[in-house]
């Protein structure tokens, strides 16, 4: 056990910190979940990519730096510490890319990864359907075999930033005779083609970033199938329980948020909340320690397994506690929007609270995550 950072890790941190200090634009930033804000963020993503910071853990061949997972955690810590813009391309680089690294062909990696990290091609996840929310295996969208590929039809929903993206990835039923987990195939679908209709859906905070995507015979060439045909569930789950469980919300985010909460307390003190503020600050650091432990194990060849579900439970509940506390500190100013003259910190705590409320829902509800942990970690009988 050596919890100090190696000279090269320290050098990496110093380089990241210096670059961010010199390049992170002053806030507040527009929301990346509106069309105008998204365009602003894409410019930032391009700048990040140009400097080699878009996907540090990727091979240099695809625009990364071959950084270790430890270094990636360090970069994330520095990124959030600097208050840099939220990553609007994260559903590509953090959710699709790990799948491509594990199951993609060389051709796919060559073709897809660099434009993804460069923010030239924009990716949205398309896991949910109207009848497949928590019950992800209940996919109704179909793919019919045609010459050179597939014709896909159906409805995908809650596609984050789907209205601004170029392509989606998700599961399609390629074997009509099957049910649930069997007979599904993991596909990427170009949105710029006939047979695709994208309907933006506003979130409760007013941002328009959700999309419903209606597919009616859109074409998916064979080269856009990831992994084996009919083996999509395995492909999706393997990456869910590998790196994706780690990368969705890295500790740096919560370290930064709780540090800012401490700063907020200094401006809006309330002694009755000291204990709870210390508690969330500690929990964020526990999440950091846990993650360094996990990453050490992964770098030695271990997997993350169902720990990704424990991770998700921990950070989502921590995030909600943190933002609730911030609103408690703010009192009458808590409810003000960013355009209110009296708004504190550009209303980031209210916006953060609203987003934190979604944490126990997205990426698999916390009820489903608890079921998964009960079954896979505690080996309890299925209900």
């Amino acid at each position: 056990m050596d919890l100090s950072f190696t000279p090269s890790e320290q050098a990496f941190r110093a380089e990241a910190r210096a670059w961010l200090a010199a390049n992170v634009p002053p806030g507040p930033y527009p929301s990346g979940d509106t069309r105008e804000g998204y365009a602003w963020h894409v410019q930032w993503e391009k700048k990040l990519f140009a400097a080699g910071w878009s996907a540090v853990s990727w091979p240099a061949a695809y625009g990364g730096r071959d950084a270790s997972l430890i270094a990636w955690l360090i970069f994330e810590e520095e990124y959030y510490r600097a208050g840099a813009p939220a990553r609007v391309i994260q559903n590509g680089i953090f959710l699709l890319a790990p799948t491509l690294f594990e199951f993609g062909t060389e051709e796919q990696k060559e073709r897809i990864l660099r434009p993804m990290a460069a923010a030239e091609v924009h990716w949205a996840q398309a896991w949910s359907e109207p009848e497949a929310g928590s019950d992800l295996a209940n996919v109704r969208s179909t793919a019919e075999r045609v010459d050179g590929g597939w014709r896909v039809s159906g409805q995908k929903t809650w596609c984050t930033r789907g209205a601004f993206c170029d392509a989606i990835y998700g599961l399609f039923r390629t074997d009509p005779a099957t049910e649930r987990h069997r007979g599904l195939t993991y596909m990427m679908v170009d949105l710029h083609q006939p047979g695709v209709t994208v309907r933006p859906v506003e979130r409760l905070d007013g941002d328009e970033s959700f999309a419903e995507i209606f597919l009616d015979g859109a074409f998916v060439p064979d080269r856009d199938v990831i992994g084996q045909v009919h083996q999509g569930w395995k492909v999706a789950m393997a990456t869910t329980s590998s790196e994706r469980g780690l990368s969705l919300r890295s500790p740096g985010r919560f370290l930064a948020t709780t540090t800012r909460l401490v700063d907020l307390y200094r401006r809006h003190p309330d002694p009755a909340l000291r204990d709870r503020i210390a508690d969330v600050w500690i929990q964020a650091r526990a999440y950091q320690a846990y993650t360094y432990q996990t990453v050490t194990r992964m770098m030695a060849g271990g997997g993350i397994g169902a720990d990704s579900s424990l991770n998700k439970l921990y950070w989502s509940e921590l995030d909600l506690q943190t933002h609730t506390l911030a609103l408690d500190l703010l009192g009458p100013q808590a409810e003000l929007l960013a355009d209110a003259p009296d708004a504190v910190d550009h209303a980031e705590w209210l916006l953060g609270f609203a987003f934190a409320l979604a944490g126990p829902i997205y990426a698999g509800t916390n009820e489903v995550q608890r079921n998964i942990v009960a079954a896979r970690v505690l080996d309890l009988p299925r209900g």
Partner: protein
Amino acid sequence: MHFAFTEEQQQIGDAVRDALADACPAGVVRAAWAAPDTAVRSLLADLGVLGLNLPEAVGGLGLGMVDAVLPLTEAGRAAAPVALVETIATNPTLAAIGEADLAAQVATGEAFVTLRAPGGYAVDADRAALVLVVEGDRVGVVRAPRLVAQPAVDGSRRLFAVEGDVEPTDADGRELLDRAALAAAAQLVGLSHHMLAMAVDYAKTRRQFGAPIGSFQAVQHHLVDALLRVRFAAPTVAQAAWHVDAGTAEASLQVAMATSLAADAASLTARKALQVHGAIGYTFEYDLHLWMKRAWSLSAAWGDARAHRARVADHLLGAPDA
């Protein structure tokens, strides 16, 4: 000891509920985000609710806070886009400071009086004939306020910062704030009932894993936790109202208790209702957020749960640094 609303009180509550069910569906709440409501306020005037606790001499019903609990609860259930907290809270003060003419206009809905929350804002101040403020333990009047709009999370609650000359009065400030907090608590109970009902309905119809999600223990227990908080908060609101009307020494303490419980219940219910709905509840087009945002707003505007508990703690335990 008789802990029940009278038949008359129930009837007024039912009448408000029925009228709002017709006149104030979710679409009307949503519309008030774009264009401030006038119709629902008129309806409440017609029902006598706006003058409920004004003297009969100025066209009011001459009733008290206990009588106001069910109408307020029902306005909360409907998320009526009306600053009813301010009206119920300020009515007795208007009578006390000799604003009889204005009071008469409030009862009919012709005029509106608002109240600036401590450290906070006044709803619909741009439409108000008068803004009341509390300074020290007394009520003050701002007749020519300078207003700055402060857009907030609930688009139907139009907040304004208020500045301007304050004309002092002898009216009791604590009593005014207690009425406001209590009126908000009653609305929070109604808001909670509705959010819970939405979530229960959704849980009965939404199917996943081949069954209605309301058949899963985790979902059931979420909803029961919310119900538990709402059920035990509601009687304390009625009890506090009784103490306010009776002018007992513990009235303000009772208000603090009720408000803290109602605010906690509403916060928890909002969270559980959203969780049970999942992503659909997170959209702007689904109605749940209209109720959630009102709940967030009302549960903090007149002192949040913790602030009211701090008042109780001071009473029980002495001042913090004693």
